[in-house]
């Protein structure tokens, strides 16, 4: 029979090889799915994984778009990963993303049409504060009343969505928009816009912030006392208490950081690629980022790579849809399969597969 034996330390070789193997297996399984749907499986796989990066017709546009799509995912996932390591479950990053966007855009719309250097920095601050404040609700309820943060943060997503709808229909509605919902387009308000920093690269301030967050998280986790406390609290809450870690403080810090980063992501998105507050502004980055955080094994560099991979399947999936006429549902199922393989094969980095009889210990 097959048995799994825990490795004393994770295998470096398998840590790198497992994701590659997972992608390869997904291609095989995906090909079967696409063939069953009557699409040329090879063309489908090539369109999803190859064309966004290397197709002459699309790549020069699609490649920078990877960053646009991955930026918010990485930024949010980095924040979430700190909490997840410490055992603080913020499932409501989507809501914090929305509130960050509303606060950031709110500053811009209040100052419109003022042309001053401080408009954009104030928006950044407001965005981070908005996300932070929204995450403080579950944090305070948790530390003061022991209310479960999973439930509060999750339900607050729906509350944030109602606020978003209310804002796009009321307070923030574009006065020159003929009564239609949605705010002014911030892309057309230079002092508040978050444009591409270098044309054709997809780099905007949100992507920069994502990279900065990766580096900062890496340093925090490896070189800083707080990082040590976070890791300790996750591995052994009792030991952490003996080591003098205040669990309430950790909850506030972890939820605060993840909320602020999610808020920043929302603010950069509304001022840049999305451009405006609208009823359907949020597209699920906050939930996808949870997957990204775990795909990246809660490690900053892993999250960076996982974010880029997710972005690739989104963009490749879009191409496959209209080039090959695949339904969006097929792409969704395919993404699910990819995640299954990635998560399942992760076992290889932590365990050794033994064939034959189990060793008696």
């Amino acid at each position, binding site marked *: 029979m097959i048995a799994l034996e825990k490795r004393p330390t994770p295998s470096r070789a398998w840590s790198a090889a497992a994701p590659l193997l997972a992608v390869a297996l997904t291609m095989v399984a995906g090909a079967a799915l696409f063939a069953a749907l009557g699409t040329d499986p090879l063309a489908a796989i090539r369109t999803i994984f190859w064309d966004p990066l290397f197709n002459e017709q699309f790549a020069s*546009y699609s490649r920078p778009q990877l960053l646009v799509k991955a930026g918010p995912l990485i930024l949010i996932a980095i924040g979430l990963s700190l909490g997840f390591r410490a055992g603080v479950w913020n499932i409501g990053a989507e809501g914090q993303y929305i509130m960050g966007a509303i606060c950031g855009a709110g500053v811009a719309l209040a100052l419109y049409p003022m042309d001053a250097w401080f408009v954009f920095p104030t928006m950044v601050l407001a965005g981070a504060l908005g996300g932070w404040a929204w995450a403080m609700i579950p944090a305070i309820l948790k530390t003061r009343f022991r209310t479960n943060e999973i439930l509060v943060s999750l339900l607050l997503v729906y509350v944030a969505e109602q606020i978003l709808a*209310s804002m796009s*229909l009321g307070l923030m509605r574009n006065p020159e928009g003929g*009564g239609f919902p949605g705010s002014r387009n911030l*892309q057309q308000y230079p002092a508040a816009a978050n444009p591409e920093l270098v044309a054709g690269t997809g780099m905007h301030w949100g992507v920069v912030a994502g990279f900065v967050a990766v580096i900062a998280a890496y340093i925090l986790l490896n070189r800083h006392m707080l990082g040590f406390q976070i890791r300790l609290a996750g591995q052994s809450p009792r030991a952490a208490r003996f080591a003098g870690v205040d669990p309430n403080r950790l909850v506030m810090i972890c939820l605060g950081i993840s909320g602020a980063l999610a808020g920043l992501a929302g603010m950069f998105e509304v001022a840049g690629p*999305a451009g405006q507050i609208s009823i359907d*502004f949020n597209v699920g980055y906050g939930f996808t980022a949870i997957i990204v955080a775990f795909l990246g094994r809660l490690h900053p560099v892993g999250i960076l790579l996982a974010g880029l991979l997710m972005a690739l399947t989104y963009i490749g999936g879009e191409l496959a849809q209209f080039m090959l006429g695949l339904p969006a549902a097929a792409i969704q199922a395919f993404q699910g399969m990819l995640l299954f393989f990635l998560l399942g094969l992760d076992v290889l980095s932590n365990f050794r597969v033994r064939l034959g009889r189990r060793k008696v210990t």
Partner: protein
Amino acid sequence: MNRRTLLASAALAFGLGMSGTAIAQDKTKVGFVFVGPIGDGGWTYEHNEGRLAVEAHFGDAVETIYQESVPEGADAERVLTQMALSGADLIFTTSFGYMDPTLNVAAKFPNVKFEHATGYKRADNVGTYSARFYEGRAVQGHIAGKLTKSNIVGYIASYPIPEVIRGINAAYIHASKVNPDIQFKVIWAYTWFDPAKEADAATALIEQGADVILQHTDSTAPQAAAEKAGNVYTFGQASDMAEYAPMPRVSSIIDNWAPYYIDRVQAVIDGTWESDDTWDGIGAGMVKIGEITDAVPAEIKAEALALQEAIASGAYHPFTGPLNRQDGTPWLAEGETADDGTLLGMNFYVEGLSGEIPQ
């Protein structure tokens, strides 16, 4: 590598200033961007029916491509750009939220034509189109006013936007014209799509005495709730919902984009396409009234058909004065008809409706 992609990439090398479609090609490529899944049975479903009609009409001369469930905003802009890069000649963007992305992408691809549904911003290569659904609402209102015995009409609205408010007003004006005692109860569902919530809303309205339910949401959930309650009339929305005929569904408003789509594709093929603003109703066939079933007494049916005919021929405008706003201030004088600008941005109730529009 074929010639087209080679040239397209050369075009790209010059920045996105030129489009890949400048090259002659035999097939006309038409793209569609949908906000929901084509299986939503409502708004997107009907747009996709229009796409299929284009394919059926032109056969091999036209190739259509589409993408469903495209979020409004950044994702839409990318999808549009990729479609333009893939060589589309004409792209229909079928949701209001695609307005700014459509204009942004259109500016980069001057040789690609864009048609944006329900928006108000145009450019040399961006036209807009929408349907005068309120004409259908007027006919519904007339039938509702005649049919109701409790004098309470329930209305399931989505979000308080001009399109929806226009529908409520049009229905109310024509219901109260034939039944001055009528009362409208409006529930704002605050969602485009949540069948379960629509079912709850319909049930709540029926429980509070409504015996006619009008809906501005796309699912058949209210029809099923009405069927369960019995003796409640409903109208199909977006699609015919004929599976609930003859009762509770007594008629419907159907979005019929096919004639317009075929017409615009033909214009691109002929080289006669020009940016314009189309707002068609029953007359042009963009809004269809589904069969009025026998559950409606014959004389009411005849009146409804006459009203439909008068609107179609242009003899009658559903917003004809005298009409006052909700607060009693005059809006339209005797015989005056509403101008399109006011209708497009409509954010007020007409006199007689109770409650406030959420702001």
